[in-house]
């Protein structure tokens, strides 16, 4: 049972408060959609959970432990971040083998995940020639390499074609179905509506709502309207 827990998390960049006293959890067996307008602080929050950005105050843990303190973290948490970098001159297989070597995973895992994301045919090709969709698949393969119990994804649907989006949805649903924990950020409501069980909505770094998606959708005029109502106050504030 591996739960992501964010507690009173804040982060300031200079005078800008990117994340402001944010608390929520994402539990196993569910896909939690992490929603909010552009610039709401989603990426910063995910990066704090992954130990890449240091919180100003508050804590973020996975299975009760801060990411940086987890032994072999990629065997617990797989992450797909927006700027997943690949060395353009390295082949897809070499990229995965480097990760296997660093994390002490058997090299056979590279083949397993290449098959899982359907990239076997291009395993020996340099990543520099990959399309955005292929890179995204490789990023997902990298996240799956350590057979983690948790997946954290930042806007994974961006740039995927409809078939890719459908494939990704199936993969994440299956992952959660095997009692995995999935936290996925998005600003595409339709995508989240088809994927998530729970939603966490933030705006300007603050929590607006956390709860079951179907409850949010059942109230009044549907999910999209409920989301727009939630974020309206914030948007009017900005104007």
């Amino acid at each position, binding site marked *: 049972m591996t739960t992501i827990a964010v507690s009173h998390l804040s982060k300031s960049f200079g005078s800008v408060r990117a994340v402001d006293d944010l608390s929520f959890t994402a539990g196993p067996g569910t896909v939690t959609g992490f929603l909010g307008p552009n610039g709401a602080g989603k990426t910063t929050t995910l990066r704090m959970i992954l130990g890449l950005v*240091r919180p100003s105050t508050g804590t973020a843990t996975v299975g009760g432990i801060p990411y*940086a303190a987890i032994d072999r*973290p*990629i065997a617990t948490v797989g992450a797909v971040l927006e700027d997943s*970098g*690949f060395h*353009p*001159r390295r082949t897809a297989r070499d990229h995965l083998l480097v990760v296997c070597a*660093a994390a002490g995973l058997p090299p056979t895992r590279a083949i397993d995940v290449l098959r899982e994301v359907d990239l076997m045919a291009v395993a020996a090709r340099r990543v520099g020639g990959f399309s955005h969709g292929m890179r995204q698949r490789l990023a997902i393969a990298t996240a799956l390499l350590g057979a983690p119990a948790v997946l954290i994804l930042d806007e994974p649907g961006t740039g995927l074609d409809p078939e890719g989006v459908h494939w990704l949805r199936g993969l994440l649903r299956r992952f959660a179905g095997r009692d995995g924990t999935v936290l996925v950020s998005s600003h595409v409501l339709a995508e989240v509506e088809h994927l998530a069980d729970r939603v966490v909505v933030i705006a300007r770094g603050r929590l607006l709502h956390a709860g079951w998606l179907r409850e949010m959708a059942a109230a009044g005029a549907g999910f999209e309207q409920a989301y727009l109502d939630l974020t309206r106050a914030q948007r009017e504030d900005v104007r």
Partner: protein
Amino acid sequence: MSNLVAAELRKARSIRTTWLLTAAALGFCALWTVVSVLTLDDPGQAGLALEQRVQNVYQMAQQAYLFALILGIFAMAGEHRHRTLTLTLLITPRRTRVLAAKLVACTLIGSAIAVAAVVVTAGVAMPLLAATGRPVIVPGIAAILAGSALSTVLYTTLGVGVGALVRSQVAGVAVAVVWFLYAEYLLVWLVPAVGRWLPGGAAKAVSGWNLGGGELLPVWAGGLLFVAYTLLVTVAAGAITARRDVA
């Protein structure tokens, strides 16, 4: 830790840049060895005994240094350039361990290049010296080749520190080239007494360079000084990167 070093070695092996830099390093050694044999009787070297001039031919094994340095810079700054640092830190959140693994891996790669540079230099120098009727074997060659190899290794390691500190491949290489090819020579020209205390002077001391005047530090002191420079740069880089947000 051995996992991380193995991963770093695999990273280096799986891109062509590593092999191109190695080839360039060896090519430079061969080229400078040929040039130094052909200019053995130049008036500029008239103050040196033939034995010392032949020693300086073997010292060309040190000419791998610039490419070794660039290789070290690329190994670290490349993580920023290609945005692979995020993944590297997801696998190994403790940043000092990443830096340490890079240092160890690049020291190993630098050692391989250094050994190859010695073989190439000796392989070019010996037949050329013999063909031009000069002594092939003079005293002190072994020490010079060993010193040249050591200086190449030290430069590779320094490159990792420079790359970690500067974080940009282009800026890192520019800084290194300007410093070691121009700035240090200019400084030495202006204030000759500081030469032995600068990184390039320390490395020359390690490789047993004959300047005729003996104004360099002893080999051991040059080596320690160079290692101290590397540690200084690396520790500074480590201190800065330890807390920095990776966004």
